[in-house]
């Protein structure tokens, strides 16, 4: 081996402490975090449908819990998590399938868009629910 220059074109694994903070990395972490949050959220959705099958008494209890102001905050955060995971997940499908959106500029732009979309879509869902309900 002559010289110390690294000529292998393969990308190097980044070191944790010098890993530059950027949008795609934040989106990746948020994707995982929202996924784990929804894991626990699924127990609540299960509680809703199981109480519906159990009868009016059980459903009435769950309904009172859902209508509590604190539950509205949880529901809104649930909607944000679902919308983020959905939008960001579709991004991954475009990466893995047709390999679209890999260039750093597009990838960063989409990552930022997903955050804005998640909050806007969750607000839209709540507005629609208020109109219907």
């Amino acid at each position: 081996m002559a010289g110390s220059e690294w000529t292998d074109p393969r990308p190097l694994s980044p070191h944790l402490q010098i890993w530059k903070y950027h949008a795609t990395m934040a989106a990746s972490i948020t994707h995982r975090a929202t996924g784990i949050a929804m894991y626990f959220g699924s127990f609540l959705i299960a509680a809703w449908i199981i109480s519906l099958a159990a009868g009016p008494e059980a459903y009435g209890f769950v309904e009172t819990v859902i209508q509590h102001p604190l539950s509205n905050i949880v529901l809104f955060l649930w909607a944000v998590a679902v919308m983020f995971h959905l939008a960001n997940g579709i991004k991954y499908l475009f990466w893995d399938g047709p390999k679209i959106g890999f260039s750093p500029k597009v990838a960063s732009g989409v990552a930022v868009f997903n955050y804005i979309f998640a909050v806007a879509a969750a607000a839209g869902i709540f507005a629609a629910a208020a109109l219907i309900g």
Partner: protein
Amino acid sequence: MTNKSTAIGSVRGLGAAKSGTEHFIHQRVSAIALAILVPWFIYAVIAATKSGFSGAEAFVAKPWNAILLILTFGAALYHMRLGVQTVIEDYIAKSGTRQALLILNTFAVFALMAGTILSVMKIWISAGA
């Protein structure tokens, strides 16, 4: 970059780890299903919860709603199991704890599947649709 794998290795396409390809594909196929089902599910939750117990029961008792609910629960819980399996494998290094959490993950997902799907079926069947 030159391909250093043998001909049979390339055909099998399993890489050095020998497994994981199936997990990867299942994760994405369930994701495609959920990209369609989740927007519907959001609508379903709003439509089903707006008019109390009887309204929710009537919503779930409709055949299409019952079918889509079961598909959503099935795909979401399967996707969830695969995702959390990866998280556990990534972050829990201690073998015993890791195995215990992986088993717990499997049990939790199957319990949720049984509970949610059976509930939808009970509502649907008892409505006599």
